[in-house]
């Protein structure tokens, strides 16, 4: 009797629900999505297409008649020595920042899981702080610390060890690595907390079982921790490939403006210079299109590989 009544209620419930869902199927979801869609189309996708269009013209930001030049902007950019240098530097940035902001945090996360929970929270709180700071503030503070004469780094080193460090930001061989260091200093907290969270989330029973079977720490890392981390690590690498150039933009702009001798410029900075320092929209747009093609295809390949890897883990 009661069961029957329950079933009745359930059926009614189901009906009402379906009715409600059907009724809402009309326009409500589209209305809720409308503001977001409009914003994204107007300020991301439309300008994105416009960039392709602008790249075919010779024009400048200040106005003046634009002249159709076809693919000439692309040819000009590809032949430009600065472009080749910027491309090469972008690869160095990606490599350097991947090592410093993904691999090193992995090692630190492995240390961090071994200390007590209270200390974990304290260390993590400190180590994540730079992520929150403005790139421009970070750059200015480091500019001060690294000042070759009065900066605390050079003063300390010469007082304590008698070393004379070169002017790191003005030396063509060290400048790019200094920028990579500063950028990584700011960003490594992101990878650290993500990797840490995954390691902490690994089921303790796996680890205990492995330990009882006499596995060494290194074996546990290779056969348990690392495989479980692979999806995240590939995501972080993808993320770094896509964004390393942008993260470095602030420090480059404040500290070196691409110099000395273009050794620290990268594609993003060159794009900015062509667009907003030389006011050359056509060439800047051509550069933007090439940037997108390279990064976009890189991202798609990476996502594809990531997908396969995740399936493999399952």
């Amino acid at each position, binding site marked *: 009797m009661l069961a029957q009544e329950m079933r009745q209620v359930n059926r009614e*419930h189901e009906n*009402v*629900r379906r009715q409600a*869902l059907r009724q*809402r199927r009309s326009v*409500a*979801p589209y209305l*809720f*999505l409308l*503001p*977001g*869609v409009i*914003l*994204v189309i*107007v*300020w*991301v*996708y439309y*300008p994105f297409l*416009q*960039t392709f269009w*602008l790249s075919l013209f010779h024009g400048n930001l200040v106005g003046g008649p634009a002249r159709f030049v076809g693919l000439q902007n692309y040819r000009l950019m590809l032949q430009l020595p600065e472009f080749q240098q910027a491309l090469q530097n972008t690869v160095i940035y990606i490599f350097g920042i991947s090592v410093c902001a993904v691999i090193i945090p992995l090692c*630190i996360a492995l*240390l961090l899981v*071994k*200390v007590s929970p209270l*200390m974990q929270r304290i*260390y*993590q709180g400190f180590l*994540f*702080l730079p*992520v*929150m*700071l*403005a*790139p421009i*503030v970070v750059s*200015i*503070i*480091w500019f*001060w610390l690294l000042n070759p004469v*009065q900066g605390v780094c050079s003063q*300390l080193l010469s007082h304590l060890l008698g070393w004379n460090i070169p002017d790191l930001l003005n030396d063509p061989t060290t400048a790019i690595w200094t920028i990579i260091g500063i950028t990584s*200093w700011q960003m490594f907290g992101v990878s650290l*907390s993500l990797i840490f*969270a*995954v390691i902490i989330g690994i089921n303790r029973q796996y680890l205990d079982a492995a330990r009882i079977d006499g596995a060494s720490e290194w074996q546990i890392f290779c056969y348990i921790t690392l495989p479980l981390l692979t999806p995240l690590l590939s*995501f972080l690498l993808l993320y770094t490939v*896509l964004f390393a150039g942008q993260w470095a933009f*602030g420090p480059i702009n404040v500290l070196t403006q691409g110099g000395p001798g273009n050794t620290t410029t990268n594609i*993003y900075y060159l*794009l900015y210079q062509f*667009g907003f320092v030389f006011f050359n*929209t056509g060439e800047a*747009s051509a550069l*933007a*299109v090439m*940037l*997108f093609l390279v990064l*976009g295809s890189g991202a798609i390949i990476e996502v594809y590989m990531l997908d396969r890897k995740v399936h493999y883990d399952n």
Partner: protein
Amino acid sequence: MTTKTLEHVLRGTGRHIVLIGLCVVVIFPVFWAIVTSFKPANEVFSLSLFASHPSLENYRDVFAALPLGRMLINTFCMAVLVTLGVLIVSICAAYAFMRWEFCGKNALFLLFLGTLLIPVQVTIIPNYLTLAQLGWLNTLPGLTIPQLATGLGIFYLRQQFNNFPKEVLDAGVIDGAGPLRMLWSVVLPNMRSVLAALAIILFIQTWNEYFWPLLVTRGLSSTTIQVGLQVFLQENSNAWGALMAASVLSLMPVLVLYVLAQRQIIAAFVRSGIQ
């Protein structure tokens, strides 16, 4: 046995030494900036860890050189408006994705996801030209509205909203609650902590934003503190005390927010990244 415990202790301290060293590397620059900002001119170049005669001289200097009050207010307004805007847009979109099945759902989600693949630098020139045509350069709408177009908030909230129990929604439907009332009085109150964390992150990100204000604003009194810092650096690259004072003013709000909500901020970052 004793050698084993000794090794254990040594390893433990070794770990702490590495971690503490790292924390020093992270904290020292910020600490040094704050200390330098309070040192009078004759002490700025000394290595002492504290200002022996702390003074506000540097702060007076920057306030005299820059319209800092206006800049801080501008930055604050921009950050609040962008945070609120992104929150509203993202909440609506994420709610639509959670609540209904509808035609084109996946395509629309990809539309938002795709924005993450397009670097800002690619769209910035056309956006600048559009603003110029609209006459929006150096205006509040020009500064804030383009910054609202991001898929990040939607992406993050959709993950969080998906954990929301469907039974509660059904109960609301049976009670006859309309979609807006349901959002307002059922979904949002249960998502308070998630929304607060997102709001804090958005606020800090916008507060730190530098590229867009640099392009859109004209003149020191209508720009943000980050742009002001850059200008001040270019004009007085040797006034280290004053530069540090300006930097400290710019990072203080972020630092305070971070100290207050540090755990929630890190947790929100982790949640958004791991999924």
